[in-house]
């Protein structure tokens, strides 16, 4: 049940992002809402959930806009996994920790994306855009993360409560 709801939320976020991505950017750089959700899930639940959400998000993006499978799929699942692993022993829920972990996760995603894009010939000099894309998009993701974290946390707590009462 939980998994279905999380997949649905992720699906809605992807659809919203594909439909409205032009309107939600700042100075031409857009926040990656589905990635932020995957990273928040990694924090709220665990690294496996983060990797799974990242994998599904990346896979759909590769299918919808890519020319092969793997560019977003690998980068986003690794980012989700690493953030989940990194947040294991941290006191979760503090805004600053959420923001820092989402920033780190976004940087990891962009870095792996650059490596895959370089080796598959999609980008010839991806390193040139380290600042303009990697840092800028990670900062924007960082600023939207508290809101998405609250959403993910509330869904998780609702399910905990629901299952505690019912079972």
């Amino acid at each position, binding site marked *: 049940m939980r998994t279905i709801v999380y997949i649905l939320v992720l699906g809605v976020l992807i659809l919203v992002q594909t439909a409205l991505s032009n309107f939600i950017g700042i100075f031409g750089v857009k926040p990656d809402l589905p990635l932020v959700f995957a990273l928040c899930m990694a924090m709220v639940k665990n690294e496996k959930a983060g990797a799974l959400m990242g994998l599904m998000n990346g896979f759909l993006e590769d299918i*919808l806009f890519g020319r092969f*499978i793997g560019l977003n799929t690998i980068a986003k699942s690794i980012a989700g996994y690493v953030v989940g692993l990194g947040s294991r022993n941290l006191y979760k829920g503090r805004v600053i920790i959420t923001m820092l972990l989402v920033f780190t996760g976004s940087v990891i995603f962009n870095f792996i994306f650059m490596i895959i894009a370089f080796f598959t010939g999609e980008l010839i000099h991806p390193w*040139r*855009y380290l600042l303009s894309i990697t840092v800028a998009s990670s900062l924007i993701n960082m600023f939207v993360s508290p809101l998405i974290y609250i959403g993910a946390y509330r869904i998780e707590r609702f399910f905990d409560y629901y299952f505690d009462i019912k079972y």
Partner: protein
Amino acid sequence: MKVVVLLRRLLKNRRWLILVLLLFISIMIVNITLNQEAIFKKIEIPIITVLSPAQKILSKIGFDIKDKLDTIPQIFYLKEENEALKKQVAELLQYKQNLLEYQRENTDLRSLLGFKDKNLQYDLEAAEVIARDTGNWFNVILIDKGEKQALKKDMAVITNEGLVGCIISTTANTSKVMLITDERSSISAMLQRTRDNGIVKGSIDTAPRGYLKMDFLSQDANLVKGDIVISSGLGGLVPKGIVIGEVVETKKESYELMQYAIIKPAVDFLKLERVFVIKGEKEANQ
């Protein structure tokens, strides 16, 4: 000896083993789908078919909201805009008169030289934009027409303002279009005024974002701010004469053998809602 111990420890630690295995599988998937388009298409088609109706509806809602939000500040500028438009209409009418005069003169001269009157029109297919790339690295859009409407890979996509991009893949009812602002895009182009040739490339970092770069312009090319850049037709992907944008800045390469120009695209990619795919050229009714 140490290596054997390390390997034994790694084999004991299942998590690392699984991770390495997953990474290996991922690399295999990248390799297969990158080199064999047919396999990628088999996975792509059912997913896009399921998702495209929802994307179409959401995209429409998005544009409706944007339209409404855009009209609010416009109310305050309506009077000034009206005046400016009247002035523009007067100028355009004068241009129209001149054009008709040139057209007549051209027809006369062609008949004098014995040239066949070439009057070709594009065979266009109208399509709606239903989704946009979610990431910041590439610029790809999804349109709601595909193989059923005889759209194929590499066909040029335009609006009434100018060139949008080229189709990079198709399914039965959708097509992926790589915009000219995408880092991977390059189009043969020329300056309308001087006929100097170059290559227009999309770039992530051409400041401000969303602008293009026209490379390989010779050192003696006479570039002026405001020059119109059109497609040159070389390469065969984009027909000749489609407006790409206008020159906003010219710069010399560091080694001074070439120069390049920063181009402002003619198309407003943020308001891209409806596009036309050029399926071919057809003879217009004489």
